[in-house]
């Protein structure tokens, strides 16, 4: 057990704001990537989806 632990700082409001914006950008980017995968998958499967055996 340590009383000191690793040295840490509190982010300034500006740093926190930038981190929040970066996090949101990553989130939106991942969302867009998922949508892109979905759309390209639909495009590649195309009419085969309707012709599959049920």
């Amino acid at each position: 057990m340590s009383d000191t632990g690793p040295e840490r700082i509190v982010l300034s409001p500006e740093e926190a704001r930038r981190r929040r914006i970066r996090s949101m950008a990553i989130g939106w980017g991942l969302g867009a990537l998922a949508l892109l995968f979905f759309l390209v998958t639909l495009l590649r499967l195309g009419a085969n989806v309707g012709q599959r055996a049920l």
Partner: protein
Amino acid sequence: MTKLSAAPTEPIAVKNAANQGGLRDYLLLMKPRVMSLAIFTALAGMVAAPGDVHPLIAFTALIFIAAGAGAAGALNMWYDADIDAQMSRTALRPIPQNRVPPDEVLTFGLVLAGGSVFCLGVLVNWVASGLLALTIAFYIIIYTMWLKRRTPHNIVIGGAAGAFPPMIGWAVATGGVSLESILLFTIIFLWTPPHFWALALYRMRDYERAGVPMLPVVAGKDAARLQILIYSVLMVAAGIAPGLIGLGGVVYLVSSAALGAVFLYYAWMVYVRRDGHAADEAARALFRFSILYLFALFAVLLGEHAAGLVG
């Protein structure tokens, strides 16, 4: 148990590792101007290639080509942060300015590189993906890590990295590589030395200070001027060639000849103006025109094919 000095709800970070970077810094890390040229030449290669590409596939390909080019830019800035700090042209980049920690840039670059190559392969095709991987590896390992600090031929060989995008675009459309796409590669490959040596001529002190052995620094300005002229002649010939083999039409043939003539004029001015302010201005003029030349050449190729003027 470790005792934290901050309350659990407060945002905390390890000291001296605070990332001050905003989105703009991450955009700068991706070298947006280089990226835009890569996107543009890839699009030209895609449109000039035989066959049709679905607009969604084309859009997807361009997104990941841009991401791959951006990854290469970020990894380059990570590795070259020490020399960037010594050059006026690059000293304001995010790492020398301590706005983004280097390890963060490395992670950003690696994730972007791996992700772009993987996604291009899965969503478009693996030939294009392989060429993108080759481009990034060439730029980082061959150019940045190996050649840049060791030989005045750094950008002659390293220039290949910037020449791949039209080949990638072509591979997106056709799934392969052909003589035509190799010709588009050759144009940019031959364009790179006069472009960067013109820059090095009027930024020579920067490169000297940073210890980068650019040709004017190692072999002297006159040797660099001669090499610029030689490469310019070869590049102009390569630039006209698509018009002669049917890859470009009449408009391309005329435009490439006219643009090439202007390029050669600027290269000749660099060759004959060797002293003082006039010499620097000649090099600056060639550097500026070289960017316009490449954009215009590929714009005409793109326009002709988009308008259906070439078969």
